[in-house]
């Protein structure tokens, strides 16, 4: 049983606080994707779990045992570093073999171990190369193979796809899903790409400024973000955020967005309670309706393979992005349109701190899934 448990973990470098009171429990065999902007503390968190840095406060336990005095080599982890950190003076084979030989495996076991993981990652042909002679993709796979070689019960992957090109990244993302499932290891997967996080994480931990902003399943994170920052990090194109004053009349709660009435979930105005708010609408939740007198004017149309992103402008300079599947009719710039969005898909955030006030989103219910 290899759970990872962080309780109240903090890390300071001099006066700057890198991590501030992180508490997180990762179940045995679970993959938690850690996402956040640069400098949010993702890598530091991984290093603390690996033991290459010591926490300034709090406790880290692996498999229930306190790791405070346990050296990195005794934690039974496999780690892939963002910059690969291959051993430049060793061949790819020796790189991958290092965790096996450290565990006292015989030459034969080492060879079999290296070859099987190399076959899985399709790098058998470059095993006798030094890192210098490897392409970035091969370096990345070698680093990953090294992390996996000894079948560790804990896998720490620090943005392993950061330094590889877009095509390879897409392929690897698909492979990773299978790979992580096969390994069955308890995995912390750091990334800056929300798609990677949603594809690979059983749960996602969103970090912001050294704190955990939200921890939840991909659906929870996408449809019920705790705040504006979390909502902004997920989704492409990013969520539309528009300042609004929720009010209500005989038709129910509403806000005015770009000169159009936007129905809100019942009681939204009560929750807002007169505060300055922001409404958040996912571009794919918006739909065009046939209406020649629409208040929105199409400004730009950007076809992206499977979808078309349309930028529309309303009153007071309000601009909204609308993302529709590409089989739907495309609008033309200058066209007047109306927009429709289901009230339950509108998120309401407080303006001053960005916290979500209401709007559960569609949830995983209505058959909608995050992209």
């Amino acid at each position, binding site marked *: 049983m290899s759970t990872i448990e962080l309780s109240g973990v903090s890390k300071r470098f001099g006066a700057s606080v890198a991590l501030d009171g992180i508490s997180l429990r990762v179940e045995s065999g679970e993959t938690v994707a850690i996402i956040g902007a640069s400098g949010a503390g993702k890598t530091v968190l991984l290093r603390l779990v690996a033991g290459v840095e010591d926490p300034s406060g709090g406790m880290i336990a692996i498999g229930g045992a306190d790791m405070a005095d346990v050296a990195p*080599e005794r934690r039974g982890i496999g780690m892939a570093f963002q910059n690969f950190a*291959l051993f430049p003076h060793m061949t790819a084979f020796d790189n991958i073999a290092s965790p096996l030989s450290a565990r006292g495996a015989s030459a034969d076991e080492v060879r079999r171990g290296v070859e099987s993981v190399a076959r899985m990652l399709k790098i058998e042909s470059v095993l006798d190369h*030094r890192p*210098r002679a490897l392409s970035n993709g091969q370096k990345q796979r070698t680093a990953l193979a090294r992390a996996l070689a000894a079948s560790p019960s804990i896998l720490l992957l620090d943005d392993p796809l950061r*330094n590889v090109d877009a095509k390879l990244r897409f392929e690897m993302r698909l492979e990773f899903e299978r790979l992580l499932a096969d390994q069955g290891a308890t995995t912390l997967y750091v990334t800056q790409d929300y798609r990677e996080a949603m594809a690979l994480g059983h749960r996602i931990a969103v970090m912001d400024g050294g704190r955990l902003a939200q921890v939840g399943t991909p659906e929870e994170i996408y449809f019920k973000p705790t705040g504006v920052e979390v909502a902004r990090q997920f989704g492409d194109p990013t969520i539309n955020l528009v300042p609004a004053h929720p009010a209500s009349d005989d038709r129910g709660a509403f806000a005015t967005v770009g000169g159009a009435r936007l129905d809100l979930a019942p009681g939204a105005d009560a929750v807002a309670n007169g505060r300055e708010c922001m409404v958040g609408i996912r571009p794919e939740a918006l739909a065009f309706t046939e209406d020649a007198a629409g208040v929105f004017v199409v400004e730009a149309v950007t076809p992206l393979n499977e979808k078309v992103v349309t930028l529309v402008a309303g009153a007071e300079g309000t601009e909204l992005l609308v993302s529709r599947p590409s089989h739907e009719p495309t609008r033309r710039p200058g066209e007047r349109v109306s927009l429709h969005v289901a009230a339950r898909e509108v998120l309401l955030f407080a303006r001053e701190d960005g916290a979500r006030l209401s709007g559960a989103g569609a949830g995983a219910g209505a058959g909608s899934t995050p992209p």
Partner: protein
Amino acid sequence: MDHQSTLERVVRGVLIALVLLFFMFPIVWILMMSFQTNEQILRIPPSLAFEPTLENYQALITGRLETQAGTLDIRFMSNLWNSLVLSVCSVALALVLGVPAAYAFARFRFRLGEDIAFTLLSFRFAPPLLVLLPLTLYFQELGLADTYIGLIWVYQLICLPLILWIVRGYFEDVSPDIEHAYRTAGHGWLTTFRRISIPLTAPGIAAAGLLAFIFAWNNFIFALVLASADKQPVTVGALAFVTASGIQYGQIAAAIVLSITPTLALALYAQRYLVEGLSLGAVKG
């Protein structure tokens, strides 16, 4: 570089020739002097044409110097041996002490760390004469004066700071993540130091060791004051050629040729390590 014109190539050739001439001339001149007698060297006008003689080398190796005033015993060969012992032992000791220290200064931030490192560096720019007098007195008291151990100890003032500061820079250039990766793969820190840190900084350690060796070899003042005749290195021993019957230029030249040969050979041998690539593309840069 295949797009340069003939003119560029010619100019480059001429410039390189000039630089070579400038740096190689004294060495070539000394090499020529070493095969001439004192009379040939001192004739006016000087001439490039001469009959080579092995007299000078013979005198050095046999240890007997024939001058007009008579025969003089010189101990050049034992001086050369002293130089070798002192330099090799000093550099070896400085490497044993300096490389781990350099690693500590590069990797760990500790209280007074920078101050200690700087203090060690300051030994390089303190005038040696300043410490020599008290050092002589202490060494006589301790029985270290005129011993190899005493000299090797003092030579650390020359070698240790050099190795410490050069190797520290090389350690800082190695990504700590490479060491972290080896640790997380399941190796202890000592194994990591031996298998990762040292091999990756080997070119730097070689460069620093070579430089320290040359500085130690060329040292004059410490050995002059602290060593007597039987512990003298060549630099001090060369004073013996300033004899009552004049300066023995031929023997001095031959002595110089013999004494630069080990360092020259070492430098040529180490060259390929010095230019070898360092990080070899391990870390995405």
